[in-house]
């Protein structure tokens, strides 16, 4: 168990280092002179020189890379060129929109997908199964940002249950959760569809196992078998997908935030790109990649909890 943990931790760190080098190269090496690139074609030479000094561009590439990474370790991501505030502050504000949104959507997707997938598996080949499978097929095909637009029309414009967009901040938690509800529902729709299908096929696979037949022969009811044996064994593929989904949800949140004008990391990234604020782009992308890698790592550890065979 410890060996496995150390191995995984090592590969997590290597992945993060290589990813950071990649991002650094794209942002600071490929544009040639990032300062000139950020200021555009008609920039005054003095302005470029000032920005070069602020970004520390006169140092060598390797030294700059280590300054950036060193900054990461101490929570100093540099200063945004356009906002004139520390990037760490910008990101910290926006994480509190994007992260709760992704978690909210993940929770919704799980809560919807589990019962649906279980019902479909237990009624395999019957009308309920076909109905659920058809609905999930549709759920996968619907672009979530398009679904989001119609949610806004129905629930914000016509029924006026919620605001069409924007975010009131967490000082009013009820209003904050209301503001995140439509975005979370639209993010969760395709994910719940995928998860329900995985749940169904994983459960069907385990329901075919010998130990399930044995348990049935011993007089356990169908739902008793599912609760006591099949579900736990079906959890491995389901957990894998839930882990993968977190990164899809973060990525999807970048798009959905634009539908609802939510001030999250996605909006920050788009504004930064439009203003060529590479300093913000660099650290925000790194943060998102880190989130994906760390979640994959945690899911890997979670297998060991679900499946004792992997604890060795």
């Amino acid at each position: 168990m410890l060996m496995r943990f150390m191995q995984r931790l090592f590969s997590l760190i290597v992945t993060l280092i290589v990813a950071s080098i990649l991002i650094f190269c794209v942002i600071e090496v490929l544009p040639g002179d990032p300062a000139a690139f950020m200021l555009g074609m008609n920039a005054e030479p003095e302005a470029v020189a000032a920005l070069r000094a602020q970004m520390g561009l006169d140092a060598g590439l390797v030294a700059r890379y280590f300054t950036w990474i060193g900054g990461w370790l101490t929570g100093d991501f540099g200063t945004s060129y356009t906002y004139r505030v520390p990037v760490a502050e910008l990101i910290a504000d926006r994480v509190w929109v994007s992260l709760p949104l992704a978690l909210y959507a993940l929770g919704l997707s799980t809560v919807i997908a589990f019962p649906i997938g279980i019902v479909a598996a237990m009624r395999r080949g019957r009308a309920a199964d076909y109905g659920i499978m058809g609905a999930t097929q549709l759920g996968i095909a619907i672009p979530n940002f398009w679904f989001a637009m119609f949610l806004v029309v129905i629930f914000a414009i016509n029924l006026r249950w919620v605001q069409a967009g924007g975010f009131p901040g967490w000082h009013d938690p009820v209003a904050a959760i209301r503001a995140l509800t439509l975005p979370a529902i639209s993010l969760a729709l395709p994910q719940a569809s995928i998860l329900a299908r995985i749940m169904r096929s994983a459960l069907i696979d385990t329901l075919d196992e010998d130990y399930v037949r044995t348990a049935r022969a011993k007089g356990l009811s169908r739902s008793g078998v599912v609760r006591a044996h099949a579900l736990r064994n079906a959890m491995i593929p389901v957990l894998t997908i839930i882990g993968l989904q977190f990164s899809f949800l973060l990525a999807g949140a970048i798009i959905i935030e634009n539908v609802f004008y939510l001030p999250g990391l996605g909006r920050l990234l788009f504004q930064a790109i439009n203003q060529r604020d590479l300093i913000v782009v660099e650290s925000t992308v790194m943060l998102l990649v880190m989130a994906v890698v760390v979640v994959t790592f945690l899911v890997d550890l979670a297998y060991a909890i679900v499946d004792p065979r992997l604890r060795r």
Partner: protein
Amino acid sequence: MRARNLILGGTLSGAFALVALLSFVWTPHDVGAISIPDRMLRPSADHWLGTDQLGRDIFSMLMVGARTSLAVALASVGIGMGLGVPLGLTAAARRGGLLDDVIMRGNDLIFAFPSILIAILITALTGPSVWNAILAIGIFNIPVFARLSRGAALSLWSREYIMAARVAGKGAARISAEHILPNIANLLIVQGTIQFSVGILVEAALSYVGLGAQPPLPSWGRMLADAQTLISLAPHMALFPGLAIVLSVLGLNLMGDGLRDAFDPKLSRGRAQ
């Protein structure tokens, strides 16, 4: 039931391919024709699906947009297969070796970058364009095909007929090309169909946020972006491009499922995506 998926999916996908091809020679109206007095018209005999905020015919725009969607998805599946499959086959041929390890770790690394982040990084450098979308989705597809072909090839390497080929003195590259690739082609076609549909969805999303197809190139995603602010005035502007996406993605997914069942009835139970 099984054949029904294939027929329905194949028909839908075929219809979209036909419409995209047809748009090269005929559209009901000129796609670029702006006519402000005719803006935001509801569907009618003249404009089958109505007009947009500039009075352009939505049906014609959807036809040309199908071209963009299909071209982007096709090109990115091409990139993913073209690079991913050789990588996967190489990794399988050198299973357990250093090269295998390097290729698979590289795959893990790409998996850490959701396609939207790749698109954002490329856009930060070069500005938005439809090529960014192709590249971003293509890169995202590489590990998908590499993992699939490695896994499938691994199970084949222990078979007798591969053994026989090795005894006959064939090298790993030749065995991979002559014996393994044809045997995993079915799997690749099924995954290719699914990645094609994913490509259409991601292209639409990228174009919607302005990272994909740029004006004047018509694209379903951009049509939705235009429609968003006008959605209470002209809901048809948002409805039809979205339906086009749903139907084409649905068609491809059904076709993928149908093909999988046709190739291997044993695997017909559910799709792991």
